């Protein structure tokens, strides 16, 4: 299995088959796309706070996106919102989160030399890279990038006459997402097979860190649900480019009566959300896995209820496949179907609640070490509570009638994804940075980044619940067209203020990250005094991870502050003492 090939610059840094390098490739690409997505949100937030006015920030946009008065064009507002969603959901929170941490952690935490297939793994990154190029290039085409929302419902996304971005921009979006999905699948295959087959001696499934369990279930969700996005997209490609009528029927647009008959946009929605819902758990589960790990290590206590946490992950994974209809309550579906989806959706609250209570119990009587990673992990739990609770309203079909597609939804999904999942990702970066780069990130800059982000993020997204309950729809270029929203201007200004401030605060993180790679203080082998296997590898990071034999595992990952132990942590490789019981 160990390919002791000679490393050249190309094979070490570019076409690497080493999972650690591939992880970093995913991370850097994900971070750059996050910056792009964040800039887009800054631009459209400026429009919302000062509708129809010009702004210096619009200088970042292609010239054709603003009119003669310097104001943002309405259809380009929709383009920004679409690309922001696409980039953040797929590029940052899927590839940037799973791609990074699954690749980095799985072989290290299970005690393997590398993934089952380094070659497929390398391909998975390069498919992702090309997908990125295609997507970014779509920003500059004549009609602009895809503009039908990241959910790209037809007919809007099928007809360039309906909105310019549905021309070449949308075609490139589809090409890009196809490449992205193929890359994701190649990665997911590897993650599953590696975890099932390449665990080192003594690493039973019951001794796996929760991070690995979360990444395993995530990968399974991915290989089962992403292909349906491909089916969905394939039929859309045929409707757009070959005149079929899978999704289109009875349409008159741009003065033209289209020939399509018999298609149904609702069919698209079913296929799309069959992926779409598991997708948000593909985003959330790795973040929760990271949060579990970071909280345990920094509480110096076992994660409370390990078995219950594993079962919760499995139940959430299973349920995530049967709730997709809650995105479609208002499509005119049979009310009975609506009832079924309400039932299954509200059920998912149960394992989610169990996880929250277990996190609280882990913190109870802990000896908390507040590394920046720990701060983000705790904030991640807070966001999961806040965002998860509003899910109870949205998942209830009768209540959804008045909040569907309003800012209430925007608040909810940003708090669970934009806060909870991103916080998980940031916690992961801060926590495993020493392992990735052999250096320490600056702690004080980390603290500054955290508090700035925590304050600004809740400042941006909590007020949105009120906008939603006031009836304000999402994806509106401005609220000034309806007098009923005149009273909401102040809230919009407040949100934009926090959004711009929050964006600037992220510069601290970017600075800290890149500075520390080059000039950070050298890390020790196990700076967090953690039990898991990745901290038994040398600081310099070698191909094949361990210089000699693979480690043997004798215990689970959470023997922190175990009574009778010398230190407040015991590596998983440490054999049991005379008379010591395994947990």
């Amino acid at each position: 299995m160990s390919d002791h090939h000679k490393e050249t610059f190309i094979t070490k840094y570019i076409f690497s088959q080493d999972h650690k390098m591939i992880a970093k490739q995913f991370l850097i690409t994900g971070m750059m796309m996050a910056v792009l997505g964040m800039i887009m949100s800054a631009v459209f937030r400026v429009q919302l706070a000062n509708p129809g006015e010009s702004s210096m920030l619009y200088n970042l946009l292609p010239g054709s996106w603003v009119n003669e008065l310097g104001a943002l064009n309405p259809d380009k507002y929709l383009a920004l919102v679409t690309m922001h969603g696409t980039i953040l959901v797929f590029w940052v929170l899927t590839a940037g989160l799973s791609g990074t941490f699954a690749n980095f952690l799985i072989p290290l935490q299970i005690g393997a030399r590398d993934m089952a297939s380094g070659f497929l793994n390398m391909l998975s990154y390069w498919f992702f890279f090309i997908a990125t190029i295609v997507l970014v290039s779509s920003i500059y085409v004549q009609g602009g990038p895809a503009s039908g929302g990241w959910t790209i419902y037809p007919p809007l996304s099928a007809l360039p006459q309906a909105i310019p971005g549905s021309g070449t921009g949308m075609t490139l979006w589809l090409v890009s997402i196809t490449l992205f999905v193929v890359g994701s699948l190649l990665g997911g295959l590897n993650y599953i097979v590696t975890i099932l087959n390449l665990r080192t001696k003594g690493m039973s499934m019951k001794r796996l860190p929760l991070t690995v369990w979360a990444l395993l279930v995530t990968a399974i969700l991915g290989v089962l649900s992403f292909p349906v996005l491909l089916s969905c997209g394939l039929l859309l490609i045929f409707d757009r480019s070959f005149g079929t009528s899978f999704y289109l029927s009875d349409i008159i647009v741009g003065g033209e009566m289209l020939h399509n008959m018999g298609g149904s946009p609702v069919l698209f929605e079913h296929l799309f959300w069959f992926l779409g819902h598991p997708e948000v758990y593909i985003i959330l589960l790795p973040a929760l896995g990271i949060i579990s790990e970071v909280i345990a290590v920094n509480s110096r206590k076992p994660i409370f209820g390990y078995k219950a946490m594993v079962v919760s992950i499995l139940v959430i994974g299973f349920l995530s496949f049967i709730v997709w209809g809650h995105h479609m309550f208002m499509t005119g579906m049979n009310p009975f179907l609506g009832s079924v989806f309400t039932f299954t959706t509200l059920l998912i609250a149960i394992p989610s609640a169990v996880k929250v209570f277990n996190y609280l119990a882990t913190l109870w009587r802990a000896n908390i070490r507040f590394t920046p990673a720990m701060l983000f992990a705790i904030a991640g739990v807070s966001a999961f509570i806040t965002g998860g609770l509003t899910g109870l309203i949205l998942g209830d079909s009768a209540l959804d009638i008045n909040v569907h597609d309003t800012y209430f939804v925007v608040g909810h999904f940003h708090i669970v994804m934009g806060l909870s999942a991103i916080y998980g990702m940031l916690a992961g970066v801060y926590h495993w940075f020493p392992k990735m780069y052999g250096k320490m990130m600056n702690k004080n800059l980390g603290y500054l980044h955290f508090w700035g982000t925590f304050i600004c993020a809740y400042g941006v997204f909590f007020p949105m619940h009120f906008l939603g309950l006031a009836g304000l729809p999402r994806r509106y270029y401005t609220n000034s067209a309806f007098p009923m929203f005149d009273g909401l201007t102040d809230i919009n200004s407040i949100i934009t203020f926090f959004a711009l401030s929050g964006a600037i605060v992220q510069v601290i993180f970017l600075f800290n990250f890149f500075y520390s790679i080059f000039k950070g203080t050298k890390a020790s082998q196990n700076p967090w005094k953690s039990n898991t296997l990745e901290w038994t590898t040398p600081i310099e990071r070698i191909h094949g991870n361990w210089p000699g034999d693979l480690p043997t595992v004798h215990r689970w990952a959470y023997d922190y502050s175990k009574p009778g132990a010398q230190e407040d942590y015991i590596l998983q490789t440490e054999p049991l003492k005379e008379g010591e019981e395994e947990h």
Partner: protein
Amino acid sequence: MINILIALVVLLVIAALVQITRVSELLAEIKNKDVNQVTDDDNKTQGVLFLFIGFGFLVFVVWQMIEWNHLLLPGAASVHGEKIDVLMKFTMTLILVVFFIVTPMLFYFAYKYRGKQSNTAYFLSHNNKLEVIWTVIPTIVLTGVIIFGLKTWDETMNVDTSDANVIEVYSEQFKWTARSSGADNKLGTSNFKLVTAKNALGIDMQDQNSLDDQLLREVHLVVDKPVLLKFRSRDVIHSAFLPHFRVQMNCVPGLLTQFAFTPTKTTKQMKKEEGEDFEYTLLCNKICGAAHYNMQMSFIVETQEEYDAWIASKQTLSQKLLTQK
């Protein structure tokens, strides 16, 4: 020019940050301290910050609730809407109670258990009894929420529409058109293939039911009388959102959707309660193109007499045909 200046400023700021950080790390090295080691002092500071900023967040939430309460939608102006409001109050109360218990616990624990070198954490890996308790209690609560929710949903969706006044709401980029079904309360059939400049909704004039239909630029509803709105779309998915009535339904090209409800407050009444500027508002609530944010059509709720007077002045399609000849 200004771009170059901005870039220079950014570079200088970065350079300054690099030097500051490097200096602070070197200073720590001189003092033989690991600048990135988390100390007891750090834990105290961060723990205290969690207490203050965490509770500050909760204060912020309460402040928002008080400050912006008056901006929220007024009570529902429809029969099923009132039921939805009851469900909403119940569910919202429930989640707020949970939020205001669990969130402070989280921040308080972060503060109370801030670490000290001299402390040891309490090694407790699990407690099955607790797991059962905090699985069963949410299950029971959620069962209640589900039953209540499904009941409300059923009462909203499965209404008797036999007496309802049928009105069609037709959506397109970027406007709404309404069509009353006339005296016979039956809408004439339509087909998009029949759409012409003179027949924008594609109504089949061969159908007898079409003759008394009336095209409308605004919708009038009679208070306390059920209405059945039928939705069509000309081009892309739109969504008819009438927030004051708690009504929302997608308008899908190639599909017929509908929503039945009974308005309970006239526009005049709402103006008394909410201010002279009040209007019932129809919003498009599914991204449909550039002017998605500006699809306007008035909805007015009035008494039977006011309605009769108003509708009498509207031309039927057969009358329209005659005048066109």
